[in-house]
């Protein structure tokens, strides 16, 4: 009696849904471990670097002089003075570079997306690709040959900015191009259908729609060129004092200060190296932060 019942109770065919098989569980575990390890490998050096820089450099940043004074008249062994002149130099060189690279880059991207057809567009894209692969030392040497060699002009912060333009331009063109391509063709057509000419459609519809992404791209490109070292080694001299003139005289930037103070083996020099490194990281971080804030404010609202 009981045997018949158990036969009846047993399902005629195996249930449709089976538990997860052992093989799949194992594969899942292996993959999870591998991905986790890869993440650690990527993150550990970054955290290590940050800890080292902060640990060795933060004491330099604690004094008010660090942010407000230059190193003018400071002896190698003295723990006084600051990097105000180098912060000014880094910001000036980056801003001048951006003033040139952003309009040219954005306009080039508009050409490529909205107008470019055929050979000229292909050549431009190809050149931008090549330019983005040019090492910074090559860009610096090119400007050196042109600015100082051919034109016979002296070393200056402006020459540095020019070589930074070569490095920043492809990044701006690329990021702007991508943002403009994200703007749906339907929006352009909607504008044309209202009898709006093409140039006005680009200025009033396409650019505002892509603005947030374009601004983010520009800010990130600026953060990227801020730490470039090769151009400042080749194109401008080191100075211990403040210089606001980008066309004349030596002007120190943070990378140049770090490079110069490396030759100072005294504890004061080492502290200045790590302090300047930390200052540079903070500056770049601030730029990234501003990029995030700006893009959030200029982002398209839906509520």
């Amino acid at each position: 009696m009981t045997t018949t019942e158990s036969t009846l109770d047993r399902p005629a065919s195996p249930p449709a849904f089976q538990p997860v098989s052992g093989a799949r569980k194992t594969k899942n575990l292996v993959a999870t471990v591998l991905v986790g390890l890869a993440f650690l490998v990527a993150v550990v050096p970054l955290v290590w670097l940050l800890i080292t820089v902060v640990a060795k450099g933060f004491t330099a940043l604690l004094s008010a002089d660090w942010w407000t004074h230059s190193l003018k008249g400071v002896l190698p062994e003295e723990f006084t003075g600051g990097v105000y002149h180098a912060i000014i130099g880094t910001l000036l060189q980056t801003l001048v570079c951006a003033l040139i690279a952003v309009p040219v880059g954005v306009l080039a991207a508009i050409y490529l997306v909205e107008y470019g057809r055929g050979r000229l567009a292909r050549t431009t894209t190809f050149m931008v690709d090549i330019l983005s692969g040019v090492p910074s030392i090559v860009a610096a040497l090119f400007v050196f040959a042109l600015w100082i060699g051919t034109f016979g002009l002296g070393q200056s912060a402006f020459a540095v900015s020019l070589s930074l333009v070569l490095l920043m331009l492809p990044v701006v063109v690329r990021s702007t191009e991508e943002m403009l391509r994200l703007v749906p063709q339907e929006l352009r057509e909607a504008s044309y259908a209202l009898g709006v000419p093409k140039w006005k459609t680009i200025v009033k519809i396409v650019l505002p729609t892509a603005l947030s992404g374009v601004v983010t791209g520009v800010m990130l490109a600026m953060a990227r060129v801020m730490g470039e070292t090769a151009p400042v080694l080749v194109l401008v001299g080191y100075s211990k004092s403040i210089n606001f003139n980008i066309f004349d005289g030596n002007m120190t930037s943070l990378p140049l200060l770090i490079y110069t103070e490396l030759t100072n083996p005294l504890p004061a020099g080492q502290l200045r190296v790590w302090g300047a490194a930390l200052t540079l990281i903070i500056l770049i971080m601030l730029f990234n932060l501003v990029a995030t804030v700006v893009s959030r404010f200029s982002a398209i609202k839906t509520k």
Partner: protein
Amino acid sequence: MAKRIDVKDLNIFYGKFHAVDGVTLAVPPRSVTAFIGPSGCGKSTVLRSLNRMHEVTPGARVEGKVLLDGEDIYASSVDPVEVRRTIGMVFQRPNPFPTMSIRDNVVAGLKLAGVSNRKQLNEVAERSLRGANLWAEVKDRLDKPGGSLSGGQQQRLCIARAIAVQPDVLLMDEPCSALDPISTLAIEDLIGELKKDFTIVIVTHNMQQAARVSDQTAFFNLAGVGQPGKLVEIDDTEKIFSNPNQQATEDYISGRFG
């Protein structure tokens, strides 16, 4: 306001591809003409060539004539921007300008043409939104972004934007295909009202819709893939849906193909 359109022997090409072959039709003013036909038969292409919008696609060109009250819009002396201002268009998917408020969306055409008088702009915005049956729903939130509206409201916003520049003709490219039945009904009612002031040409895949809203219907078809699309026949909507002249039209309408 409300001009007639005469299309004479229109051939449309994309590069070397012959997309539409020899279309001749007439659209009287203050009427609704529906284009129906299977996918790829060229009805949207014909619609887009009526306000020179197809030229936006690289390599596209036309042969033949499109006359707006007797004036050839393809004449070499004619500015395509002016043509598009006179012949407005509503697209398949609602596409309000994402950076603009509801009010700015409606008056975008005027603002971009240089009108800056606030009072005038506000009047046009209200009149156009009333014309698009949207005023009651949005009058308290005109400064909210256009993207905050529902799909059906966005499409009526786009219609309001199109009529704000006071075109003579309104082209609609499947304006309801992305909308739910209730929004579709709202747009269809609106089309019925708009035809008092505008000449309307509408492309639709929905034959009931063509039967409901249009005065005359044009049936397009193509012989096969890679072949150009053709206008099979154009007649009063009642005739097309009850007793068409062509067998192909009857087959399509009765659902035997397509």
